[in-house]
């Protein structure tokens, strides 16, 4: 029986490791994607599924809103520089990371 060269074994091991890492990171990406989508869905109660409000709604749609603009508005609600009826109270409960996640999600959704 022919023995496999140590070089080939190392190459195989390295490839397997890379593949494993890539699968693991893909799974982690998928999980993060799911968690982020669920986090953004906390806005949908008022702002509509995926940020699409019903026709004629005075509550603004969030779908496709540019990320920088949304982060700025949410932080302005949070620090009280933009007046609000409810949003100043909601945003004070959110971390900056959650605000970033939410703004990233809605910026990426298609109008």
């Amino acid at each position, binding site marked *: 029986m022919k023995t496999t060269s140590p070089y080939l074994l190392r190459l195989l091991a390295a490839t397997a490791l890379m593949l494993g890492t890539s699968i693991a990171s893909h799974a982690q990406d*998928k999980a993060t994607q799911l968690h982020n*989508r669920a986090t953004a869905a906390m806005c949908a*109660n008022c702002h509509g599924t995926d940020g699409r409000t019903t026709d004629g709604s005075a509550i603004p749609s969030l779908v496709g809103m540019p990320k920088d603009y949304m982060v700025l508005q949410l932080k302005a609600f949070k620090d009280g520089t933009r007046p609000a009826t*409810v949003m100043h109270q909601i945003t004070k*409960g959110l971390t900056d990371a959650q605000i970033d996640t939410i703004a990233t999600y809605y910026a990426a959704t298609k109008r």
Partner: protein
Amino acid sequence: MKRRSFVQASMALGSFGALGTMVGCASVGRVPEKARVVVVGGGYGGATAAKYVRMLSNYQIDVTLIEPNGEFVSCPISNLVIGGSKTMADITTPYDKLSGKHGVNIVRDYVASVDPIKKTVTLASGPSIRYDKLIMSPGIDLMFTTIDGLKEANASGQILQAWKAGPETLALRKQLEAMDDGGVYAITIPEAPYRCPPGPYERASQVAHYFKQHKPKSKVLILDANQDVTSKGPLFKKFWADNYKGILEYMPQHKVVAVDAKTNTLKFDVQNDVKANVLNVLPAMRAGGIAVQSSLANVNARWCGVHYQTFESTQAKDIHVIGDSIMLAPLMPKSGHMANSHGKVTAAAIVAQLSDMPVNPAPFLSNTCYSFVNDKLVVHVASVHQYDAKDKTYKTVPGSGGVSSAPNELEGIYAWNWAQNIWADSLM
């Protein structure tokens, strides 16, 4: 058509595509032998959970929703039907988008029993459905027998609750319309916790507004088992003093123990009897009947304990309980908005678990609850609840949340838009 042939006909018609894009298919689906996710109850919690399991799994996980009612009738806004400024049609949403757009298989039935060992749900009509994950969202059960005489008086249609929106909502409106000017409407409130803390005060405000416009000699009595108004107290009390003086009277520490239907009289544990023309009695509440019967209501035999990160029952594996049935973490209200939030956290957790992915370590919930003090002016309470991994519970963030500074018309517009958007988010 007999049930069996009806079911067979539905089976022939109702095979959903994997992407669930069939539009306009019948809202009553087939009864499958097995579904990966079964949801019991199509209210704010269950409908949202069903829709979001579908959406968050990219329509890969099949969902069967069991709901006895043909349409969704909203409790939020139903007080405006009682006050006369909205109609039943305004608060009713069909289930057809949940099936047609999202591919949720809807079975119109009651659940007779749940077997957490075999992981089956048995329908009132007989067949059983196996599940991998069960979401129970059965709402509340009104404990009529805790008040002497109430069960019979409610069954006869004389003393209404109208706390589960539906036929009683309209029946209560009709009682108020039929009442002579100079009559008395009395609403009784059980000790907290109960569904929708500000709801009874909103309802009393709606009836007072109606009386002020149309029956100015009439009176509203609020008989509250609690020490004080349980939600938005200063806002409600100021508005009542400024606008409903001489019409609305608030009486705390009045716990009803019996009703006399013959004389339309309320009897209390301590105070004197109160007689009124229209009685609206809200008894104590507990988790929906099927949750109690399935031994999931393991807190004081009234509410269902859950692990808050996933809403999985502390009693049974792979059964998640959401909405008004659960034992709440401190400062979490029993509201439709919260039930919708529970539905999403649970849907995401279940999609993760069924896909061998980690569950979100840091979910959060939000709540916004609007109350109409007349037909246009509104006050709100809002809160944010972040999951605390160390204490395994939800905690409000210091400095967040709060109430309106005063009743205002802008929030009246937002409140109605909130309703339309959350109905769409839960059902469409």
